[in-house]
């Protein structure tokens, strides 16, 4: 199920403003890749180019290549809708559909994809909620609104919603930044267990989190205000945190700036 992503020479723009420049990297299947870097360096922007969510912002566009196992995601006859069905996303702020029940939230993506019988849906909803470590907490109130859950539960509901459609890749943009420490731990555990089935990319501003959950770490930086963000280096997480190749990485990790 998990697939490799290859990015080469990727630039992303907001109108005339170039937010990221010339990014080339390979994201391995069945690993957790963390993006770190000072805020405004384009981590979210880059993440959103990977499932073609960048272009939903008016005036935003992308140049360069993103390949998912040989398939060019920006090819002329690629439908961005089907890309997004293949590469799921979890956002910084939990965003369950407030008018839907917990059950309907998880089933939302499946109902887009095709016809499922009631029992099939029941099965996938249960397994997705179990996969997101939420089943025990909500199994008695599946038909209550998702907005009644705590922040951490809502974020796990969003993860359940994303994995319900069996994506090949899961992108997470600072999924714990709005959560308390206990919910954060729950999500980190979840990321480690999801790794066996999915390629996971996580943006985080929390260095310990990157060190705890990821196998690979990519460090982004920008030369100055208004300049585009760039990939400085990418390596095994253990190496980035003990013996980084670049001075800027070391400065950032040791807290000398950023």
């Amino acid at each position: 199920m998990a697939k490799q992503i290859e990015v080469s020479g990727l630039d992303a723009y907001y109108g005339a403003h170039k937010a990221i420049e010339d990014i080339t990297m390979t994201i391995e299947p069945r690993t957790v890749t963390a993006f770190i870097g000072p805020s405004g360096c384009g981590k979210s922007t880059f993440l959103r180019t990977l499932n073609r969510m960048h272009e939903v912002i008016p005036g935003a566009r992308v140049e360069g290549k993103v390949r998912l196992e040989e398939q060019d995601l920006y090819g002329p006859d690629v439908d961005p809708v089907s890309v997004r069905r293949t590469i799921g996303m979890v956002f910084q702020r939990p965003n369950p559909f407030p008018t839907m029940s917990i059950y309907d939230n998880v089933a939302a993506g499946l109902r887009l994809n095709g016809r499922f019988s009631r029992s099939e849906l029941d099965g996938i909803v249960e397994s997705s909620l179990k996969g997101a470590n939420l089943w025990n907490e909500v199994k008695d109130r599946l038909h209550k609104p998702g907005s009644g859950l705590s922040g951490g539960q809502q974020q796990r509901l969003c993860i359940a919603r994303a994995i319900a459609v069996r994506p090949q890749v899961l992108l997470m943009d600072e999924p714990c930044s709005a959560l308390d420490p206990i919910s954060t731990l729950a999500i980190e555990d979840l990321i480690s267990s999801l790794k066996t089935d999915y390629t996971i990319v996580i943006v985080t501003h929390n260095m310990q989190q990157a060190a705890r959950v990821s196998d690979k770490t990519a460090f982004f930086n920008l030369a100055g205000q208004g300049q585009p963000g760039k990939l400085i280096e990418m390596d095994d997480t253990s190496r980035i945190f003990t013996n980084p190749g670049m001075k800027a990485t070391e400065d950032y990790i040791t807290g000398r700036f950023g």
Partner: protein
Amino acid sequence: MRRSAFRRSRGDAPFRLASTGAGVVLLAIMAAIGVFLVVKAIPALQANTSNFLTEKIWNPNAVEPAFGIGALAFGTVLSSFLALVIATPVAIGVALFISHYAPRRLAAVLGYVVDLLAAVPSVVYGLWGVVFLVPFMRGPSEFLNTYFAWIPIFGGDQVVGKSMLTASIVLAIMILPIIAAISREVFLQAPKTQEEAALALGATRWEMIRMSVLPFGRPGVISAAMLGLGRAMGETIAVALILPATFGISFEILGPNGNSIAANIANGFGEATAVGRGALIASGLVLFLITLVVNMAARLVIARRKEFARAA
């Protein structure tokens, strides 16, 4: 002199007085108007020789006054309801097109045009209805009557241009801009986070609208529709120009039956006797009650899904 740090700020008291005063004066004026209308209506209701609620004929100027709001209330509710049924889907479509489909430049122009149309005085729509739509509707009405008479509302032996259907269409066109303008505002406020949640699941734009925008906009659209319905029920001139002004209760909307409370007031006030005026005022109070009931029903509908409507 030392001032206390917790002293009430000086601008506060006059402002509080002014706003409370304004509120009290407003309530007092409304109460006075209400009392005045009721006082004027009572003698007419006492002089009435038939049942005010069920009588269909309006004849308050006769020596033996006989009048009732049966037909008028029916015509008011039917024409407004039909107008709402015609206008709301179109208005939602227009609003969605402006908020989520049209390119930005075109959306700005269209938004402006809709706002402009919402400000056109209703007499203009009424005149357009009489001059253009009444003659125009004869053909389509005959067609509906010939081929769709099995649908009860299109049945009946008589087909005219000045029909309930024509009046409803004019009302629909009249209330469409206001419903569209408000719905557009509401749809534009749908949270981007919800829209992105749907898109990231692989929703097409229409699926995204169904999952995020419409549920979010539902209470606002209902409010907009109710505002439109209120306008349609209170509309005087446009309806007075078009409705045949006969007193009857019939669901056959192509036929020559139809009148409304507001139109009847406009048509009858000039030549009314004292009792006649009181009767018209009484009918106005009934219109007010109907509007009130409709609005409360709308609030109930909006409140019913509160638990689910709390936006995250």
